[in-house]
């Protein structure tokens, strides 16, 4: 996607991307944000791959890869420039992390099953709808994922319309 991305330094010195003047990761300490994000994640299922929606500065994906070294991670990102930057900044993760450029994926979607689909909200600024549709798409094509697992991927603090619908749907199977 050809949107002008600006890179600015966070307080602790790491580079953080900005779109429309909105930071796609913490402007104080993106590494600490990444650690906390991974700690707050729901249970990761043993047998399958993880999808991360939103790449941002990339530290959360790197932290996730460090926490789950045996997992394959698919990081979906709306901006091509950010995808390229991640590949450049984290070459050691090339095998474990597959960066999926959404503009490419929309042209040629692959049918893949994920045990866990997680949002990185900071990186979804101003493109919430795009990630919402991606999430629905991944859930829809993903025959193995059930409603309980979707609920498990939701952050308890997340109170968007979509999260509330998923939680209401959970009550249909109780």
């Amino acid at each position: 996607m050809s949107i002008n991305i600006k890179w600015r330094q966070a307080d602790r010195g790491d580079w953080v991307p900005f779109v429309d003047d909105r930071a796609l990761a913490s402007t104080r300490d993106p590494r600490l944000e990444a650690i906390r994000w991974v700690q707050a994640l729901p249970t990761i299922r043993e047998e399958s791959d993880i999808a991360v929606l939103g790449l941002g500065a990339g530290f959360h994906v790197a932290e996730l890869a460090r926490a789950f070294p045996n997992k394959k991670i698919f990081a979906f990102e709306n901006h091509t420039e950010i995808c390229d930057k991640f590949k450049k900044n984290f070459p050691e993760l090339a095998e474990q992390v597959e960066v999926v450029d959404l503009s490419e994926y929309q042209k040629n979607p692959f049918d893949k099953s994920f045990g866990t689909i997680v949002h990185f909200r900071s990186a979804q600024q101003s493109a919430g709808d795009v990630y919402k549709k991606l999430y629905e798409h991944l859930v829809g094509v993903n025959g193995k994922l059930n409603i309980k697992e979707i609920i498990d991927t939701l952050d308890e603090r997340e109170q968007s319309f979509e999260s509330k619908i998923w939680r209401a749907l959970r009550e249909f199977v109780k």
Partner: protein
Amino acid sequence: MKILAVSLLRMGDILMQNSIFMGIRQSHPGAEIHLLVHEEFAQAKQLLDGIDYFHFVPYRSIQSVLVEGTGSLSSAFNKLAGLVRFLNEQKYDMIYNCTHTLLSARIMDLLKSPQKKGIQFDDGRVFRSQEKWLNYMNEIYTQTGLKPFHMIEVLSRAVGVECFKGELQRSTVKNEIYIQTETSDVKKNWPLQHFKNLKKEIESRFKDQRVYLVIPPHRKEVYLEQFNEVDLVACSLSEAKQRLSGARLLISPDTSMIHLAAMVGCPSVVLFLGSANVTSTFPLQEGSILLSPKTECYPCRHSEACKFAEPVCHEDLLLKDVISAIEFKLEENKQSFAGTNVFQVTGRTDRKFYNLQALTGGSAVSNSLERKLSQQVWEIYLNEDYRQPLPPYGSTAQEFIEDFGEINVEQEFLDGWLQRELQSAAMLESFVEKFQHQMQEVSRLCHRPNFDGVEGIVNNLSHLQNEITIKMPSRSDELGKLRDLVRTRYESAFSFYKAMKLAVEEFESLNFIRSQIISKALAYLRERRASHVKRARKLSSVST
């Protein structure tokens, strides 16, 4: 003004809630009233008169996607999201949740309105209401046992709607009696053979009455094995409603049909078996006759299967008592009953709540008295009338004596029953002291960051509340919150203390209110007796 009522239970509940929907209509005559129900109960559209628009939750189709995988999860998502968006576009001024389920509470969280009543989530958090009736409703639905109020009476107060009051217009009554035999739960069904015998008996005793079985069309083949085709009315609920509107009587177990009958003013004799609770789901119609077995395990839990191969309560509800109840209803003759508890619904027109007047002696009378007293105790507590400078104990006691003292409860029995209740209340006071002593022990441990040392006290509290429940099973309703709390796991002594303190205070208040009403009732009863004796003496002196 636009109002939405949410009713996401079964057909029987929707029909039972009609008096609330009509109450909404009565208090907002010009409002546009919408009702949200599950799609499988779309027939409600033909049955409820006061609703302007119906909306349906595609429950089964969403469930089949989620459980059986018949479609993509996003299709289930879109169905529910589409419905919620549509409802929010209606811009309701007020939404009433008449359902007490988590699903309805989650849907309430999604719906937008300046005023939302009933259970709901608020941005994912359980909505903590200051409304005591709403909290009480949440508590009693988790418990079994006989209840002081009809479910609708509690719900109407919890959502702040007064139930419909008004006369029902009946069409010309024909000499037709309808029998409905089945509910969706086998535990609640009286055996079909008993109904067959009942039909024969009615036909032999009431020769001018034509007796029909009203059945769902898909069950016709099964009924044809036992009954003649001319005796069967296989029809939809809307046709059944029409037939009942001119019927002399309906005889049925606890099912949607009894609420349909109440809606059109058809008298009914209702058989409560298994988990069908005679005290909380009876037809909201004065004069309805209710029969329930004296079986020890009645009423059982809705979600549990019967522990016996053949439900014992089915045989404990006696055919001859059902016939006597029908005779009582049709001929208004006093009847004697052999071994079933029989009640008549009374009290709505001049009382705030429906009463169950016992038509049999023994446990039915005690149940009836206990239900009324509990009703009064809870009402004073939940309305916070006990905090008034002059709490209405006197007038409440007077109402109690008037309701029972002149109907069918002998003065001596009533006096003895009240004396025993007063003793129980005094005994419970000593239990309250024991509870408070245990709470002092907990308060000493509150400085600890964990739950260490509290386990022993929890056991003591649990033992105390078990002791009360065994000695005085009728108090299980008042002990409900306490019991739930001692079963909950707590992180710290402080959080346990905070929760328990409120529960003990509630129990203490309820017991205090109870003893005040009983004392006043005893005094009132003696005063009345003294004035009767005085009048009798005066009359005898005049005659001599």
